[in-house]
């Protein structure tokens, strides 16, 4: 799991990294909103973004607003961390769907509790726990793993074929992927695939299905991390 920390204050980034960087979390740092945006559009997919508000080049509110307008990045939860909060800032943060707000100087306990809460909420909203899926489908973990592998491969093929596929065939493919995602408890993937069918450009649809491949892969990793004895 990756956490993106965005702050122009190196000391704050260090202190936050110490508090949030316990294994297996990987901390990624950006020194302002612009650098964070370049990382995100370059493919970085953090589970959460903890961002300062006032920064040069691009502030935390603009970073969050840009993410919200992006077909894939819109789902990244933001926790804003600031030493001061004007009414305008709080209103803009709320309008952008901020998931948490922490005042500087932050306290370790409160910061970890807020970040843990947001990550938990994201997990619950994104996918059913794979053990619940296994029970619901009445399959073994090996079978569930196989089903996830098939979904991942299908989504990968859809991306590869997207440039040459006919419009109707591509739409049917999206529908199939959406149905399989829902069956496998990948709520967020199903929702993104619905969004891809409803609107967006061809490029957005490809980006969304690429994101689905990554999310299915994350679920596969979780399934595989369960010890063989627990299976």
């Amino acid at each position, binding site marked *: 799991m990756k956490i993106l920390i965005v702050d122009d204050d190196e000391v704050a980034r260090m202190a936050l990294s*110490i508090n949030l960087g316990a294994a297996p979390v990987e901390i990624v740092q950006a020194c302002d909103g612009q650098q964070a945006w370049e990382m995100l559009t370059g493919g970085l997919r953090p589970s959460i973004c903890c961002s300062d508000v*006032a920064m040069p080049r691009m502030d935390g509110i603009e970073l969050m607003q840009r993410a919200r307008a992006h077909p894939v990045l819109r789902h990244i939860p933001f926790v804003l961390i600031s030493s001061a909060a004007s009414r305008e800032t709080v209103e803009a943060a709320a309008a952008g769907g901020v998931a948490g707000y922490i005042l500087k100087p932050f306290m370790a306990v409160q910061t970890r509790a807020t970040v843990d809460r947001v990550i938990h909420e994201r997990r619950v909203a994104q996918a059913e726990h794979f053990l619940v899926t296994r029970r619901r489908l009445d399959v073994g973990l090996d079978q569930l793993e196989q089903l996830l592998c098939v979904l991942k491969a299908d989504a990968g093929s859809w991306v590869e074929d997207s440039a040459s596929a006919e419009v109707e065939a591509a739409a049917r493919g999206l529908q199939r992927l959406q149905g399989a995602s829902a069956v496998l408890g990948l709520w967020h993937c199903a929702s993104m695939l619905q969004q891809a069918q409803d609107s967006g450009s061809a490029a957005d649809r490809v980006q969304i299905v690429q994101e689905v491949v990554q999310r299915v892969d994350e679920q596969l990793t979780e399934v595989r991390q369960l010890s063989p004895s627990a299976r």
Partner: protein
Amino acid sequence: MTAGADLPPRPAPQGGEGDRPPAQPSAAGAVFDRDAVTERFLGNASLFGRAAQVFLRQAGDALPQIEAGLASGDLGAARRQAHLLRGSALTMGANRLAQLCQQVELASDGAVPAPAWAVQARSALEGFVRESHVI
């Protein structure tokens, strides 16, 4: 506590002429807020020491710039530097220095005399170094 040495204990009060005044008892104005830093850095002196080195470098760059901004009437530049330094100071528990930075952030033209402010800010930074044992 996590791995690494604990933060150093609070220094014993010193007497005698010429000694520096003791830190203010209130955490809000303390030259070093040990309790907050212990919580924020999980009690790990090594991690705190690394952050403190960065902070001292930042403060060493920012203080002359703030002083110059105040002296020349470029309050905008002084405020920007003061805002940045205040954030770092609060994270490091250098609350007295953070208060002085806030004075600059909130000041109107000419309200903060540069030489007096610089003396107080350097004293606050020295107090932080002395009490936090970072050097």
